[in-house]
């Protein structure tokens, strides 16, 4: 049997909190990061609400040299990685550079940066376009920049699977560790809130056109009307159980115990969607049966037919009303590749604190969904094992199982930790 792969550090920036503990406190208190998009005038757009990381000033966290060459999505990813490494207290030099890898996901690339450069191209000609456009737009750039900044020279990669990709990155990071790289930094971060990124998102037809921030994204509700997009994500430090033990890791949030991914059949096929099979396969990978799962962090699309399909997958696999289901992402909006990793972080904190965060805003779930959706207030409940689901447009389904590690529980933070700064 393979050695366990542990999560020993988390760095997170979400619309309802920059910093893991800030986000978690807001999530349990039901504080939302959804508001009218303020980066440009959205008054004439059909979709106006977004989850924005408002308090983010990249220049406070990153060296000046990195700013002209990075999109905001990469700046968020670099800072999340810094915070994850600080949280894990990875001492420089503990791992050899070739023993450290980076595996991230990204769904939308560097929209804002590229939009700015296109504007230069159209108004001032090709010579005015930044040479950094050559990579700043690119899905793999977060992996590359995190690797360069931290001298992580081991096996590294980038996965793109629309909104499911963040879980795929975590799954692939686990695989990378099992192939012999003891420490891998992984997760996903996205941001596409400039006018071009915004219309590209609207074009999916899945965004909520509601204007009341508290009612716009209500997954599994009878009045579900699409989703609100968000920006941000999470970066996790994964390492082998033996590496964590050898360096006396200050905390182990839990184990990445299972992972699977499936692809949907083509439209019109009589075969069912692949989400249930992804969940089943991830549980099988973890060596668990459905009755051992304490909570499901749902993909929670907010698009009624997709909510219905996910509810059918969950109630079919676990039985009607058999497992608590939740979707705290209703407080942040959907962060694309960042959504799955933030859900994994929330699942690990549910294990740590013995509490399941609620799905805010959702009031009434159709009875025939047959799911026990945690609504209103947090549910205090011992959590040992959590299943996290994510779907991406065009057929991606991914599932990750996280599990408490044997031994004493991860202590709550010894002190309120402000994310450390480093330039």
């Amino acid at each position, binding site marked *: 049997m393979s050695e366990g792969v542990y999560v020993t550090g988390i760095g997170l920036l979400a619309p309802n909190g920059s910093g893991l503990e800030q986000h978690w406190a807001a999530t349990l208190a039901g504080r939302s990061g959804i508001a009218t998009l303020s980066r440009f005038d959205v008054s004439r757009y059909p979709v106006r609400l977004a989850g924005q990381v408002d308090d983010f000033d990249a220049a406070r966290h990153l*060296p*000046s*040299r*990195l*700013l*002209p*060459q990075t999109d905001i999505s990469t700046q968020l990813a670099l800072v999340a990685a810094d915070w994850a490494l600080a949280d894990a207290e990875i001492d420089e030099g503990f791992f050899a550079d070739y023993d450290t890898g980076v595996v991230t996901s990204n769904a939308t690339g560097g929209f804002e940066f590229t939009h700015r450069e296109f504007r230069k191209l159209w108004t*001032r000609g090709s*010579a*005015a376009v*930044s*040479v*950094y456009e*050559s990579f700043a737009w690119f899905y793999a750039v977060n992996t590359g920049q995190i690797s360069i900044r931290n001298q992580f020279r081991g096996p590294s990669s980038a996965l793109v699977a629309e909104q499911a990709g963040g879980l795929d990155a975590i799954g692939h990071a686990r695989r990378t560790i099992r192939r012999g790289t003891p420490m891998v930094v992984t997760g996903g971060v996205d941001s596409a809130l400039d006018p071009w990124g915004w219309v590209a998102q609207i074009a999916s037809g899945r965004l909520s056109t509601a204007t009341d921030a508290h009612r716009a994204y209500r997954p599994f509700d009878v009045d579900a009307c699409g989703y609100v997009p968000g920006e941000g994500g999470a970066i996790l430090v994964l390492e082998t159980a033996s590496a964590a033990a050898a360096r006396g890791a200050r905390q182990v949030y839990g184990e990445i115990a299972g992972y699977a991914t499936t692809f949907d059949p083509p439209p019109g096929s009589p075969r069912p969607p692949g989400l249930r099979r992804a969940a089943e396969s991830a549980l099988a990978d973890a060596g668990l049966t459905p009755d051992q799962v304490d909570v499901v962090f749902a993909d929670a699309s907010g698009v009624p037919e997709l909510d219905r399909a996910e509810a059918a997958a969950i109630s079919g696999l676990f039985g009607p009303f058999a497992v608590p289901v939740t979707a705290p992402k209703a407080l942040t909006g959907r962060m694309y590749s960042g959504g799955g990793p933030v859900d994994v972080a929330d699942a690990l904190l549910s294990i740590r604190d013995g509490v399941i965060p609620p799905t805010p805003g959702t009031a009434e779930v159709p009875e025939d969904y047959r799911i026990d959706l945690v609504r209103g207030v947090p549910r205090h409940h011992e959590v040992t094992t959590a299943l996290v689901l994510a779907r991406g447009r065009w057929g991606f389904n991914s599932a990750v199982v996280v599990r408490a590690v044997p031994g004493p529980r991860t202590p709550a933070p010894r002190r309120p930790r402000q994310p450390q700064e480093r330039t």
Partner: protein
Amino acid sequence: MSRMTIDDLRRVLVECAGEADGEALTADRQDRDFEEFGYDSLALMETAARIEAEYGVRVPEERMAELRTPREVLDLVNDALVRTS
């Protein structure tokens, strides 16, 4: 067009590629290698494009890649400015 000074070059570099790592680019450090300031080949390509836009002096990419220090860039730009004036 007036001459390009070390202060002009520093401003262009900062606009294109951010502040130097470590010590700032000043007149008494203009013979140091760009690498010592943390400016890589892409930073210098970006700078060459900005110099052309501002001063009308075209520095081909291959030529720019050969220039190791701020003084070499200033000499090339100012020689070209003198020839065209």
